[in-house]
């Protein structure tokens, strides 16, 4: 593929780099990169990848834009409130660079669609915000032999790594399970909504992810393969740890596509207590039953405020510190997107009560009104 004069002008500042040149630019324009999660990490990564001329970008995200996203999710504006992230991000990228292809997939990644989506791309970028997705993506990338660029943030600290890159002997580098073999419960570690995050941190980490992606495609520099980089935004300190691929890790990963599709990532760590996912209609019906309590597990200040039915608020962060005494027979829980409430439902289920989770959370409810 030859660069046209427009390309030569648009990318002139990076083509001019001695290590980069026209050849690296051609590689970028031919590359297909899938970014999963268009949030705090995904937005900056996407922005730089599109600007640098990655020829084909896919964006997977089923979430919609809320006001509390805007301090770090820089592809969105105040006017985009409640609109789907994948679609809006794709539009913003095409404004920045109309010469590339961008596909939006406003769906939730799960075992039924992950392999089909990932198979079509050369490199995968994980900008998701929960362990279920992270382990699912890691395992899918190992199965399909796709390089995976990993980044994650917690308060003022970030982690970056490049997983599963094959060397000249066709041996893959370490993957996520070589670092953390077993998936933690989502309730074990707070997410951004509960723990908070400084806005520029995912900006820094997401940009580092884009940098690793560009280097990997262009074949320049040294990558964070078999390494974990830790960055602290308060102290400006960075640490690099070596990761060694382990024999035992392969035993944790589904051996084939059928096994992958049968794997439970959403709650593979909790089993003994159960709850039931319910839709809006059933949720409203159950609410009318006797001896029933409705609990909002969102953090203080999360929008929208619910006034249309009676409920109490116990934020997930409070719930985790101390299990509340709830004596009602039926417990209905909900949150923003129906993810945190799954943890809450499992946590509150004690075998004697009946716990129901509002599937898709308040966002699905609002969009159905």
């Amino acid at each position: 593929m030859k660069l046209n004069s427009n390309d030569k002008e648009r990318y002139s500042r990076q083509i001019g780099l001695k290590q980069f040149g026209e050849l690296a630019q051609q590689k970028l324009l031919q590359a297909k990169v899938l970014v999963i999660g268009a949030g705090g990490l995904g937005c900056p990564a996407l922005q730089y990848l599109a600007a640098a001329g990655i020829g084909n970008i896919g964006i997977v995200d089923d979430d919609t834009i809320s006001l509390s996203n805007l301090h770090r999710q820089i592809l969105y504006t105040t006017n985009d409130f409640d609109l789907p992230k994948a679609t809006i991000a794709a539009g913003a990228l095409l404004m920045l660079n109309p010469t590339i292809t961008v596909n939006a997939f406003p769906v939730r990644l799960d075992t039924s669609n992950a392999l089909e989506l990932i198979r079509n791309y050369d490199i995968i970028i994980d900008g998701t915000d929960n362990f279920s997705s992270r382990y699912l993506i890691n395992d899918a990338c190992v199965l399909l032999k796709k390089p995976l660029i990993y980044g994650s943030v917690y308060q003022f600290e970030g982690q970056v790594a490049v997983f599963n890159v094959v060397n000249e002997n066709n041996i893959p580098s370490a993957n996520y399970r070589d670092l953390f073999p077993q998936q933690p419960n989502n309730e074990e570690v707070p997410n951004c909504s509960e723990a908070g995050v400084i806005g520029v941190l995912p900006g820094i980490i997401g940009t580092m992810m884009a940098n690793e992606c560009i280097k990997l495609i262009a074949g320049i520099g040294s990558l964070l393969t078999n390494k974990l980089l830790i960055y602290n935004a308060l102290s400006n300190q960075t640490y690099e740890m070596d990761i060694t691929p382990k024999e035992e890790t392969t035993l944790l990963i589904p051996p084939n596509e059928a096994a992958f599709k049968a794997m439970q990532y959403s709650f593979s760590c909790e089993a003994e207590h159960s709850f039931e996912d319910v839709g809006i209609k059933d949720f409203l019906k159950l609410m009318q039953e006797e001896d029933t309590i409705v609990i909002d597990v969102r953090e203080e200040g999360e929008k929208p405020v619910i006034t249309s039915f009676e409920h109490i608020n116990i934020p997930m962060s409070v719930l985790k510190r101390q299990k509340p005494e709830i004596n009602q027979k039926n417990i209905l829980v909900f949150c923003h997107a129906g993810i945190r409430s799954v943890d809450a439902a499992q946590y509150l289920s004690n075998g004697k009560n009946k716990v129901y989770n509002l599937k898709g959370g308040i966002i699905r409810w609002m969009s159905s009104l």
Partner: protein
Amino acid sequence: MQLKVQAFGLLAEIVGNNIIVDKQTDTDSLKKQLAVQFPSLVDIKYAIAVDKKIIAGNTLINEASIIALLPPFSGG
């Protein structure tokens, strides 16, 4: 003899950024000692790095070892 241990992320909130613990000969005994000193660690999965290498199994340590405790986190 004592060991210096550095903790990251959520673990730093539980044990502090840098802690001194009684010297242990390997990482398994260090883990046990930490669990006694900080009971809430028992419920948390974390990785240990010795001299900036993530360990795969029980690993020998000495007072010169640089030890770090790394928790997984998933924010994005």
